[in-house]
């Protein structure tokens, strides 16, 4: 128990330098891209007509003329004081912005995670247990297609089929004006969550299948059968329980990308989440917002790997946290 506590503390302390280095690199990268927020605020024609003196004043006002290292330190100092800054493009406090964006992304991510985990594990297990059957081969091909098809294409095909042609579901967005009730809201979630979930399913399925196949060849499966256990118990309690570990690791490492928001899916479905906002912020050089989202993504990655470590230790008693 003391070892575990030490481990947790050590891991958490190690995160600090990592966060510093990574945010610094992102800040630097942002500085290297051509243009700045000021040039994005105005259209090119306007920009040509504005007095350069005025532009310089504006840059000074936004603190864009300082060397980037100073700006980074300033940003960091503000952050440590709990000031997340304001969006350059519309002046909204980033804190409020994130409070709006985050629930939307979380909702979409959790739905997709649920779909991909359940569907992927179940199909993977069935595929492994019926190895070599027609169903297994079909699933293998489907998995390959699932991995290969880009999300934007799959998403658009789904929009065309289910929203435009069949008219079953809305094209995009999270709510419509005057909408109330969870059920009506669910209609908006179904399509993006399914597209994101199904595109993630293929990977989980392949993982679950190979892990399950590996486990079912182990001696202890024969022991379990020799004990006279029913087949479902041999497969699930002895087989799946052991093959769960690698699947959980895979899902754990996917967590941060989901929390950071799926840029592609959120853009296609006009989902007002972090991914969508991130895309707009990057193209707009809205660096305070980019930095905050990046910071959260970095923290998500680090926390996820931490979570995976702990989960593996819980799932597999042979693993010790040290």
């Amino acid at each position, binding site marked *: 128990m003391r070892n575990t506590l030490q481990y947790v503390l050590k891991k958490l302390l190690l995160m600090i330098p990592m966060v510093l280095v990574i945010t610094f690199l992102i800040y630097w990268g942002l500085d290297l891209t051509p243009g700045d927020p000021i040039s994005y605020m105005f259209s090119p024609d306007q920009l040509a007509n504005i007095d350069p003196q005025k532009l310089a004043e504006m840059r000074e006002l936004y603190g864009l003329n300082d060397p980037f290292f100073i700006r980074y330190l300033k940003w960091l100092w503000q952050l440590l004081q709990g000031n997340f800054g304001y969006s350059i493009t519309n002046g909204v406090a980033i804190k409020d912005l994130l409070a709006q964006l985050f629930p939307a992304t979380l909702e979409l991510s959790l739905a997709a995670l649920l779909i991909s985990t359940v569907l992927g594990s179940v199909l993977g297990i069935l595929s492994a247990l019926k190895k070599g059957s027609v169903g297994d081969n079909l699933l293998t091909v489907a998995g390959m297609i699932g991995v290969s098809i880009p999300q934007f294409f799959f998403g658009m095909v789904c929009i065309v089929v289910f929203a435009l042609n069949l008219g079953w579901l809305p094209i995009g967005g999270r709510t419509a004006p005057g909408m109330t009730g969870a059920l009506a809201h669910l209609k908006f979630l179904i399509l993006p969550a399914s597209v994101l979930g199904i595109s993630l399913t293929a990977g989980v399925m392949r993982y679950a299948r190979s892990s399950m196949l590996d486990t079912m060849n182990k001696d202890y499966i024969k022991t379990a059968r*020799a004990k006279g*256990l029913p087949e479902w118990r041999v497969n699930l309690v*002895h087989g799946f329980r*052991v093959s769960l570990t690698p699947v959980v690791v895979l899902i754990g490492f996917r967590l941060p990308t989901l929390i950071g928001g799926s840029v592609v899916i959120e853009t296609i479905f006009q989902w007002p989440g972090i991914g969508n906002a991130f895309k707009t912020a990057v193209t707009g050089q809205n660096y305070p917002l980019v930095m905050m989202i990046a910071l959260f993504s970095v923290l998500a990655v680090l926390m996820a790997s931490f979570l995976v470590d702990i989960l593996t230790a819980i799932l597999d008693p042979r693993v010790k946290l040290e």
Partner: protein
Amino acid sequence: MQQQAIITVKDLRTYFYSDKRCNKVLNGISFELYKGRTLCVVGESGCGKSVTASSIMQLLPKLSRIESGSITYHAPDGDIRIDLLERNGKEMRSLRGADIAMIFQDPMTALNPVYTIGYQIGENLKYHTTLDKDARRARTLELLTQMGISTPEKRIDQYPHEFSGGMRQRAMIAMAMSCNPKVLIADEPTTALDVTIQAQIFELMEKLKTEHDTAVMLITHDMGVVSELADDVAVMYMGNIVERGSVKEVLKHPAHPYTSALLRSIPVLHKGKNQNLQPIRGSTPDPYDRPKGCQFGPRCDFFCEKCNEMPPESPVCEGHSVRCWNADQVYGSAVKAGSESER
């Protein structure tokens, strides 16, 4: 002394299939397991020892099947034809682990790493007895104590990786013995263990056999183990039992050339360095390209015309039978040599 057979195997044939080829792994074997007696099955790797065990347990791989012959379990309430039961059906499952239990070769891999020892033993009890949770735990503790595991209260909640090899095999035996099986099949239970632990494990099995009147089928390739533990012995070669009988008879007066060659190839303790060991010439044939007739023919010193046909199993004397056309010659010389050495 009248022995009570608990399992009778008659002319059992088990074939394995792969890519349209067929490996006749068991080619007509017959034997009995008796209450309170140990049958040792010996033979080289790949001769079908483990498949015999798997056939009785119906734990054969998917692409294999029992082609013909019968396995009969003489249950207290009437005979059960094991070979006719559905492989993973309810009846077969109710026998496995309860009436017929099995111990495997490698205790390192035969226990599930993610469950405690107590859980894995308790699982057996859960499916074959009506004991409730507390009673199962009590019984598990009792079993672990019987198996000579110290501090069982602590051990019961530990995981397999916290056990040593010998301990794990004890736990496996505890699992196998949990429902007091009528038949215990041990597939090379000590191959993965070191010699001192081997002796302890065998001692334990011997004790359980006499206490519970269990029939033991012990698969091994160690002749020392055979002479130490066996009441009966069956010698297998390429899917046949070439010779079987009481251990005294077979080891002293082997009637099959393979058995006698096997015995001559084994060093004997206390005989010093200059023993005249004779390896068996040639090598085991390809199971997909078997010799005609007697499988041992090409390697046999007594080979003759007749051997191109499989010899039937014929008795040599009371409780000792052999599959060889020239058994009389082999047996005669063994008896002669035996009486000479005694003089």
